[in-house]
């Protein structure tokens, strides 16, 4: 029985298990990028197996959680079984030797007090020098803290796993599209269709603005929000991409924006240069053309920003002469200036297509909505702390080199024979530099 138990513990504390778990995690990751991570509406045949194995939500599946739990246990057991040895090495009770260097130099007898000279040089290279048993030798050890590096890293990984666990179990994440002037307090969490979460405050969108670069790419968009808390007190806040705001433990992000259909446009109608009418229209609206009562004008579409050329309205004129379909741009002058000849090339863009009439888009009430993401993530702070611990641990592990130096000297007939012996546990380059520094300083 005892045999069985130690066997089990050996497995949990084995690196072979670690390697297997890391490999399984990598495989799960590969599956997660090639199997689409959304639940299909219906599953057939082989897909059913995938569905029951939770392959469509692999990173929240039981298999994944199981591997993470096993990895945590593995890390704890590995660390506990190996820590005593690492601790002895860190304390300098046990020396690990992978590389050895031996050098010998001769110094003239006039050189006095080699001991204090060597000791101070070693101290400059961050060596610790315990009192040596003999008067003609000095021993130094450096970089031993490196032995604790892996344990720092793994402690960090455990904190990281704990943080991600908190995030995925207690975190709330939802989206809301909100139009100008609207107020909401519900977000769609998307865990199941139509599932919502009620926030402890209301979000009111006062104004949404979007700026574009000349090539039509969005430059920045912002929502001017008013957050109304339970006690009816309100805060004003400007929300932009990359600049979330924080309210009562929730973070609000500017995630996206879009256009609602049915923006309102004000059209000016001219015959030659005389204004014959002015009308406010919406998409789908039909109205008689002034002075030509039989002719009907249908508003086919209204666009906030058509082909990156600004607001535009698509009209269809139905008359005795046939149907005329064309766009009326708000910034037609600007478009003509940058694309001369475009009207001849694309008749659809000519607001004078139904001559002698001529349309001008005088005003356009854009109808943007702002896409907000609202999130409460109790694990984020822990994950941040874990990241710092892990990076610190990695630096300690890989950029500090554990090494020892032993310097002995004896009197020859008319010289000091100084021997320098060094050992390094991981990489030899730092030790080599130490030795050449020591020799350089002693010889001059």
């Amino acid at each position: 029985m005892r045999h069985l138990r130690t066997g089990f513990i050996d497995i949990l504390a084995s690196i072979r298990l670690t390697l297997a778990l890391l490999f399984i995690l990598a495989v799960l990751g590969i599956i997660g990028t090639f199997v689409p991570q959304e639940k299909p509406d219906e599953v057939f045949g082989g897909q059913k197996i995938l569905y029951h194995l939770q392959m469509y939500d692999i990173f929240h599946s039981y298999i994944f959680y199981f591997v993470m739990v096993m990895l945590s246990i593995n890390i704890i057991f590995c660390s506990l079984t190996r820590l005593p040895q690492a601790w002895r090495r860190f304390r300098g009770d046990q020396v690990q030797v992978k590389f050895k260097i031996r050098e010998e130099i001769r110094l003239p007898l006039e050189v006095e007090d080699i001991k204090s000279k060597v000791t101070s040089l070693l101290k400059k290279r961050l060596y610790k020098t315990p009192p040596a048993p003999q008067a003609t030798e000095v021993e130094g050890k450096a970089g031993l803290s490196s032995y604790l590096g892996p344990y720092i890293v793994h402690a960090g990984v455990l904190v990281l796993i704990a943080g991600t666990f908190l995030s995925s179990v207690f975190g709330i994440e939802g989206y809301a599209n909100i139009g100008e002037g609207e107020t909401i307090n519900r977000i769609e969490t998307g865990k199941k269709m139509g599932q919502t979460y009620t926030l402890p405050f209301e979000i009111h969108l006062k104004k949404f603005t979007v700026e574009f670069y000349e090539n039509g790419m969005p430059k920045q968009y912002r929502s001017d929000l008013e957050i109304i808390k339970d006690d009816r007190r309100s805060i004003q806040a400007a929300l932009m991409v990359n600049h979330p705001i924080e309210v009562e433990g929730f973070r609000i992000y500017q995630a996206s924006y879009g256009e609602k259909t049915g923006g309102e446009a004000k059209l000016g109608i001219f015959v030659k240069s005389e204004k014959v009418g002015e009308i406010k229209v919406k998409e789908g609206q039909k109205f008689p053309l002034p002075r030509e009562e039989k002719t009907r004008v249908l508003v086919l579409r209204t666009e906030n920003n058509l082909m990156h050329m600004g607001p535009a309205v698509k009209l269809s004129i139905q008359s005795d002469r046939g149907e005329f379909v064309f766009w009326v741009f708000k910034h037609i002058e600007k478009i003509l200036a940058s694309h001369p000849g475009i009207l001849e090339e694309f008749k659809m863009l000519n607001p004078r297509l139904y001559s002698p009439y001529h349309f001008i888009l005088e005003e356009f009430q854009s109808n943007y909505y702002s896409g907000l993401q609202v999130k409460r993530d109790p694990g984020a702070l822990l994950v941040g702390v874990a990241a710092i611990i892990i990076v610190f641990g990695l630096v300690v592990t890989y950029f500090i080199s554990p090494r020892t130096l032993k310097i002995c000297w004896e009197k020859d007939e008319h010289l000091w024979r100084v021997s320098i012996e060094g050992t390094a546990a991981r990489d030899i380059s730092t030790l080599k530099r130490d030795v050449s520094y020591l020799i350089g300083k002693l010889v001059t």
Partner: protein
Amino acid sequence: MMDAKLLSIVTFVYFGAFFCYLLHVIFPGRWWGTIATWTSRLGFFAHTFALLIRWRLTYVFSTGHVPITNFYESLVFFSWSVCGLYLLVEARIKNRMLGVFSLPIAFLLLAYASFSPSVESTIQPLIPALQSNWLTSHVLTCFLAYAAFSCAFGLGLMYFIAGKESIISRLLPQRDMIDELLYQMIALGFVFLTLGIFTGSVWAHYAWGSYWSWDPKETWSLITWLVYALFLHGRFVRNWRGKKAAFLSLVGFACVLFTYLGVNYLPGLHTYLR
């Protein structure tokens, strides 16, 4: 654009340097090695200069940003990191063999950037999500990691070639030395990849509202991280060396390439590189 022209010249300089490294292998002892080193140093200097020009130009054509924000710029920076890291290693180990493997990587990356018609080299303004101070630290650390892994890949290839008895293998450094250097490159890359993933997470926390969204690029960076973690554990505890280590450096580099290029064909959030 002046910077793009200069970079296309640098491409040829890198090819020339690669050629010299090859000649250095075939005719050891002659001055080909010195020429190779100085050619690649010259190329690297011009490359750095071109990057600085481009940086300056972003202030003229846009609002000013570090020139690492689209696919073209990332290729150019990747190539720069590979060449820079290689030159550092060469100076440190005093052996030019790795040049035969590193310079062609730098050359190919830059050639793809400069001459592929599908890679757009104009300076583009930044979309809102990219307007962040985390951009620089994230991209910088990630590409330094990629560069270190590329050098490890070169070393891995070298290890296999050094194993075969041939004229070339006699010119290669000791296999133990290759093995040790390969380990150091991977350790360096691993630290930078970890930093790159974490800086990316912090940024995502502010820009996308989540420090981790299992976006394909994130997932693949984690897979890459796991493969190299596997390597480091295998080495640290079970003393994986030689062929096993060299083989893992090749697998790891395949993951790097997929993280960098392959995921562009999968839907996701990191779409700036398309």
